[in-house]
């Protein structure tokens, strides 16, 4: 450029030339940074002096004002270059911050959309792995002296002794701790002048004060070339929040379970006094009568007293079975094995199993043979048996009981209908509640748990139970997820 300008530019245009040189210097500084800018400023000053300032082709300067001009040019070029370089650095820093912010935003968004607090920790581990280009990430929590993995982007693995020491060191110092890759045959594995880290431990403290750490595996880099440690600290803060949230949820669930079981126990106590005591009283009275010396019993009387003892024992057994079932369902210890179940076979099986309870009634089964639902067979058999025995117990003696099934609206709907007097309107909303007996049901035997057990079992099968009742009969509808026929 100098060669091109030198012949055509006279002494008077030197100002314009200076400006052109200044632009070049500033451009160089903007593109390649301060050092390049400063070097080009000095070079430009020398070129100006050599080619444009008289006497030409020497580094001497004739006129004092030109000396001033050259010095001023150098100063302006240097200052301009340094300012541009500063701007460039700030831009780069802003870029890095923006990238960091984007990562953190993604992180919080994914955390917020996780369906459960436990799942959120796995999501967090996955997001961190992705954002840092790591191999895997684990969210660790220290309880006592043990470390446990509470979230992971892979299959959780136990910490080695070295890793435990590093995690402890990170938590105690509050600093990021790194485990470096071992050296192979004296050759240091290096990348960008730094040894490759195998694991990076970033400490955090959750809201509940539980110490924890992120273990990030692999060579890490901050997106946008920003400050890796700052990003790691931000991620650790997120992890602390997520761990705290998981802890709160867990605490909440436990409290709820305790509350539920407390409620259950208090209702149970008031109910047990009636349900267990009355058959016991009847049995004791019958045995007392049979044993008493002063009384003479006819064969018929004896037979009746014995029958009382037997039927009351059955009643006690039923109540105890119901209570055990309910407490097992309440505590969540019932194992559910969902598999394709042929509904027709289920209905036929139930009809067979309840043939004793429905003696003297017509039981009709109306179902296509190719309807399949996804359910636990054992539980569903219990549900259906309960419903049919209920129908037999509460409906008009001799009335028919109809079992039906159909596929509608993407669900399988099973119905159990009786020809009874129906359930009073005011009782309908409460019939699935524990120990509810209804306003007219009191005269019939039962623990008041039957339908709530049925409902709990239907819930476990991912189904819904509803009831329709008129004066000419009651129909229970079970809506269950469909399944395709196996093989």
């Amino acid at each position, binding site marked *: 450029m100098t060669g091109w300008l030198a012949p055509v530019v006279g002494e008077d245009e030197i100002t314009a030339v200076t400006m052109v040189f200044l632009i070049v210097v500033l451009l160089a500084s903007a593109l390649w940074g301060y050092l390049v800018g400063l070097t080009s400023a000095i070079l430009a000053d020398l070129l100006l002096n050599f080619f444009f300032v008289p006497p030409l082709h020497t580094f001497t300067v004739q006129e004092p004002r030109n000396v001033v001009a050259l010095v001023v040019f150098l100063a302006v070029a240097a200052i301009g270059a340094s300012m541009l370089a500063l701007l460039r650095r700030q831009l780069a820093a802003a870029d890095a911050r923006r990238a960091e912010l984007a990562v953190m935003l993604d992180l919080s968004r994914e955390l917020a959309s996780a369906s459960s607090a436990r799942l959120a920790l796995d999501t967090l581990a996955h997001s961190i792995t992705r954002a840092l280009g790591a191999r895997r990430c684990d969210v660790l929590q220290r309880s006592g002296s043990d470390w446990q993995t509470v979230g992971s982007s892979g299959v959780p693995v136990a910490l080695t002794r070295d890793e435990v020491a590093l995690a402890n060191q990170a938590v105690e110092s509050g600093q990021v701790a790194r485990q470096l890759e071992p050296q192979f045959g004296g050759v240091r594995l290096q990348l960008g002048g730094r040894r490759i880290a195998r694991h990076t431990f970033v400490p955090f403290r959750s809201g509940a004060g539980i110490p924890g750490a992120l273990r990030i595996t692999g060579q890490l880099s901050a997106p946008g070339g920003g400050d890796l440690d700052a990003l790691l600290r931000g991620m650790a803060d997120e992890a602390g929040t997520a761990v705290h949230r998981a802890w709160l949820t867990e605490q909440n669930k436990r409290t709820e379970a305790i509350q539920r079981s407390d409620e259950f126990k208090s209702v149970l106590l008031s109910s047990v006094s009636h349900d267990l005591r009355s058959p016991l009283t009847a049995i004791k009275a019958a045995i007392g009568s049979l044993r008493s010396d002063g009384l003479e019993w006819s064969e018929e009387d004896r037979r009746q007293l014995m029958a009382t003892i*037997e039927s009351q*024992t059955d009643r006690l*057994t039923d109540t*105890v*079975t119901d209570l*055990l*079932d309910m407490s*097992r369902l309440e505590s969540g210890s019932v*194992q559910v094995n969902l*598999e*394709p*179940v*042929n509904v*027709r*076979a289920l209905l*036929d*099986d139930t009809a*067979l*199993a309840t*043939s004793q309870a429905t003696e003297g009634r017509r039981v009709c089964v109306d179902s296509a043979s190719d309807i399949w639902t996804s359910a636990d*067979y*054992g539980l569903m*058999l*219990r549900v259906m*048996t309960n419903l049919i025995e209920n129908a037999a117990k509460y409906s008009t003696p001799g009335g028919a009981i109809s079992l039906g099934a159909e596929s509608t609206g993407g669900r399988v709907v099973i119905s159990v209908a009786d020809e009874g007097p129906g359930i009073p309107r005011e009782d309908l909303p409460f019939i699935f509640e524990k120990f509810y007996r209804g306003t007219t049901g009191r005269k019939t035997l039962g623990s008041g748990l039957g339908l709530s057990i049925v409902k709990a079992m239907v819930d476990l099968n991912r189904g819904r139970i509803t009831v329709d009742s008129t004066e000419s009969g009651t129909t229970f509808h079970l809506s269950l997820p469909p399944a395709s026929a*196996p093989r």
Partner: protein
Amino acid sequence: MKGARVLVVDDDPAILRVVRRSLEAAGYDVETMDRGNGVSDRAAAFGPDVILLDLVLPDADGIDLCRQLRARKGSIIVLSAIGDNRKKVEALDEGADDYLTKPFSVDELLARIRVALRHQAGAEAAPVLESGNLRIDLARRVVTVDGANVRLTPKEFELLRQLARYPGRVLTQRMLLTEVWGPEYVDDSHILRTFVHQLRSKLDEALPGSGAMIATDPSVGYRLVEPES
């Protein structure tokens, strides 16, 4: 089968007392134990034909005891609490021959003991199995109900044959699937249910009501019951 020996193992003295009295009244030779420790030795010394074994004992695990006792001849009938299906099935798979759920009636107990003793007497598979109205000719693979021929597929025949080998005794889903379909089908309980359903329909067709001969023990398995006549 009068004079058969029965060993009763239960930690509840009231149950021991009642069961002993009922069994003795029925003509059995009875011994009782209130703990699981030393059951093997006692069984070796007494030589019972049937052992009634409570699954829940304070000093031993009933399943372990089943495993120890299954090598000796004689039947094991386990006594279990209501609702304890998983334990029941485990005991049956580990060598118990049958189970009774507490509370049980004395009639039921005596019936199960009779079934167990009958199996011991006729342990060799006869060429023709007969149970109530059902007649299975193994050699000719012909099944008749009350004289009426029942056409069965090979698998249905095999399933019925397994059930009829031990009439009155429960066979777990696991046992039936292993015996009829093979060990790799052990978890495919839906296959078993489908075949039981078909079998019942075919029996019902031949003689209405005879399908009920195959009874379901919910969550445990199936047994062939002789129709009450």
